[in-house]
């Protein structure tokens, strides 16, 4: 890597480093997930770059999450970066990320003077960006708890996918915008509900030294972002560290912080019926598609209601629009047990639930037309989806 000359003798040098463009672009891209253009603290629209003895750290932060990516000076015997003068700077994130992506040379040199002006050179291109005082950047939470556990990356992503869709999207009851995590005895169970439906999943995890019970509520939006920035190195373990108001996920060179929601999460266990009056096994895809077709008409009506009738070993899915007409479809269940039944529910809720399940078939339990519907993938007792029916007159 070539040395860069200090061309601005008037202002003292505040930071100087050289980074591989691809590494930098990748790191910026990830922290951008935590940077919002809408914030009340202007400096948070920027990305913070810290050059230290071991490497370069990028930080982005918003109301819910903070992301830090680290570019080590050396990795697997390759040189990623050189730090000439350690220091830090906050640069306008959108501009910086686009600029980095569009640079042509392999290396990017960043040189910051004491007035926070960053000179960014790559090949024949030279940018001069006005940065902000890094001292004004809010500090990230300090997390040094011993409350920790590890989970496989693919499992973590699955858990998120299968629960986070059910969180509430309005802030009316803030605690419901999160997924409740409960860690107990080597088991992690997650629950999400928006009070019309519920999703629940549990997995085994590798506990840390401490084996107590922890309950915390993580904002759904944080988990969505987390899933997006986790790479595809599926078998790797993610370290998870908890404190009373923050949670930290560590994977490779990424640190992902999220705030935790306070407030009491409602006790959902008693909402899940234990008995079943009608039990039907159906192919997951068949049911999904039947409901999808029925919802074509249902969507036209505002409520998106689909009816299900189970009788004489036959399941009939139907819906109707006063203006457009009606649709009927019969499915033959793999297994049918219990009373005949008529029930109405939201096509969207059912499709949301079914769409998250990988199992070939699902088992659906009904207790009555006004009681919760329970959906479980056949062959996995750890997953449960619940939706409340719609009352029709």
């Amino acid at each position, binding site marked *: 890597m070539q040395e860069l000359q200090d061309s601005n003798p008037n202002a003292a040098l505040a930071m100087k480093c050289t980074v591989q463009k691809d590494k930098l672009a990748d790191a910026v891209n990830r922290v951008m997930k935590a940077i919002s253009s809408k914030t009340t603290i202007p400096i948070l629209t920027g990305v913070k770059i810290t050059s230290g003895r071991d490497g370069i750290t990028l930080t982005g932060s918003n109301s819910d999450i903070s992301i830090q990516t680290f570019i080590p000076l050396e990795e697997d015997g390759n040189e990623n970066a050189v730090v000439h003068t350690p220091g830090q700077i906050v640069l306008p994130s959108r501009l910086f990320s686009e600029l980095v992506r569009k640079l042509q040379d392999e290396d990017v040199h960043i040189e910051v003077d004491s007035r926070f002006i960053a000179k960014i050179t790559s090949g024949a291109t030279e940018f001069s960006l006005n940065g902000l005082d890094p001292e004004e950047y809010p*500090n990230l939470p300090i997390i040094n708890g011993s409350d920790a556990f590890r989970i496989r990356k693919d499992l973590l992503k699955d858990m998120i996918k299968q629960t986070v869709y059910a969180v509430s999207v309005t802030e009316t009851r803030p605690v419901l915008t999160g997924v409740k995590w409960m860690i107990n005895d080597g088991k992690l169970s997650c629950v999400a509900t928006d009070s019309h439906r519920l999703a629940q999943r549990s997995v085994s995890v590798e506990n840390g030294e401490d084996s107590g019970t922890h309950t915390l509520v993580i904002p759904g939006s944080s988990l969505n972002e987390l899933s997006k920035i986790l790479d595809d190195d599926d078998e790797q373990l993610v370290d998870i560290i908890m404190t009373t108001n923050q949670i930290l996920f560590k994977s490779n060179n990424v640190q992902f912080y999220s705030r935790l929601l306070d407030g009491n999460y409602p006790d959902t266990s008693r909402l899940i019926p234990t008995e079943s009056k009608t039990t039907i096994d159906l192919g997951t895809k068949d049911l999904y598609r039947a409901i999808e077709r029925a919802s074509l008409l249902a969507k036209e009506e505002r409520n998106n209601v689909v009816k299900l009738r189970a009788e004489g070993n036959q399941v009939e899915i139907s819906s109707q629009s006063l203006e457009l007409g009606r649709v009927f479809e019969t499915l033959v269940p793999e297994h049918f047990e219990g009373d005949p039944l008529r029930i109405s529910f939201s096509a969207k809720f059912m499709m949301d639930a079914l769409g998250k399940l990988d199992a070939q078939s699902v088992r659906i339990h009904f207790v009555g037309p006004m009681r919760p519907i329970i959906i479980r993938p056949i062959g996995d007792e750890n997953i449960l989806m619940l939706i409340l029916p719609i009352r029709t007159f």
Partner: protein
Amino acid sequence: MGVIKRLSETLANKIAAGEVVERPASVVKELVENAIDAEASSVLIEIEEGGLKRIKVTDDGRGFAPEDCRIAFERHATSKIHEDSDLFHIATLGFRGEALPSISAVSHLELTTSDGVHPGTHLVLQGGHVIADGLAQSRKGTSIKVEGLFYNTPARLKYLKSIHTELGQMTDVVNRMALAYPHVRFTLVHEQKTVFQSNGSGQLSHVLAAIYGVRTAKAAFPFSGKSLDFKVEGLAVHPQISRAGRQYVYIFINNRFIRNYPIFNSIMEGYHTLMMIGRYPICVLHIQMDPSLVDVNVHPAKLEARISKEKELCALISESIRSAFHRERLIPSVTGKPHSRASKPKNEQQTLDFSPTAVTGPDLSEPIEHSEHTQTEKAFSEQVHEPETHTFSSQMAGKDESATTLEQSVQDTSDVEDSPSDEPQRRMPKLYPIGQMHGTYIFAQNEDGLYIIDQHAAQERIKYEFFREKVGETAREVQQLLVPMTFDFSASEYETVTEYQDYLQEIGLNFESFGTRSLIIRSYPTWLPEGREEEMINDIVHQLIETGKVSIKKLREKLAKMMACKRSIKANHYLRPDEIQALLDSLSKAQDPFTCPHGRPVLVHFTPYEMEKMFKRVQ
């Protein structure tokens, strides 16, 4: 001694003959105006059956001299102007000598009057002819009774509306007169019931209270302004009390009620973004100027006026109203009563700033309880050394004086008058956040009570002020277009656009004709927002058609509003404590922190007293 002379033929012709009496309300207007011209201090208007049966106006003015009585009913007989040149500086309401003859021509009229010197006169007229003539008491003043209005013009009679409507019109007339002459006491009685009464105290706010109630009057901010040629003053009611119609804006030139669109607009300009779109204020504006600068002889009902130096006047009005609002805290309160404390702004008791952000940047690194503790202490110790921090005793003194509300005590402490601080006045009270509700509203408190802030509106205001500055800086650059934009216009629109082609070119829009009613442009100014160029160009054309000019300032303001709304946090968006603090801090620096650029309130306020009332802790 008689003062009435016939107008010269030429002068009589100069005055446009017009329909003076259109409806009962016009009779009231003419008679009341005459009473005012006679320098009455009290005017009683008695009405029966919406004025159709009887209108009686009694004043305590100078009265008629005996020999003037008959001549007053002749056409173009007036005591008010004598020379042609008098027409150019009319200082009285009447000047045509038309009202009395016109009214008497279509009614049964009785005049009882005395100048207080000579014996009084009693005169009865029917259809304009004197049918009886006698003596009356010699008490100074005049009473004119009009009965059977339009008895001999059935067409007019048919045209009249319900008693209710006619009474409404008459009330409007009397209200306007009362607002025009606060020192004259007006009483309007319909069917023996007093419908309206002003106290003649000379206080405009008393008249406003008589018309709209005490609540509205209390919410009115006095404003005033002066230039070489004009003096303006009046009352502008808090924008929280607004109306759907324009008729609650009263404009008086030399105490004469007039309608004038540019002046109306200048009042709206004064309210600016404080007024919600499609809503209009209640506002009374008095303009005093040399009569020679205004020509009221435009319309027979004298409602219109031509004003020289209108632009200068309008600017003065807008500025006066705007600065009146700037002195005020326009926070709507929950009881609906805006805080209209026109208090001396320099008397605000300075307070210690305990907020953590005052000394250090926001910090998430430590547990909340801990960090707050240490930072508060730091903030405290640093603040105490500042010379600005005033004595606690002054604050205490204030509290003693008025036990009613804390806010008063903070505002009115008089012993800090010689405060040396010349820094710009902070109009926003310092707020300390409590929390956020539904991801949408911020709750905050201070010694004056509870505040609820709409987070979107708050940031919209902050960003709007930022972009308003920024948009103005844009350079004069034009974007060329590969495919020209086509605009289809109506015939008249097309006409206007082609007429103003040169003008449009100056602002960067070069229209070329393209078929009969289509125009194309091949380039547009770069400051037009991306993706909305067409909309903005259409806006420009419509502005041009409506007002004959294009205000780039207005367009850019619209642009700033658009950008502010887009870039602001929305509802349903969680904010962490340091973000809330940052929002409140920047809101306190805004020029107009109380409304969003669309005029909706940014915050509402509950005083401790209001809270106590809510919980029935006080009566």
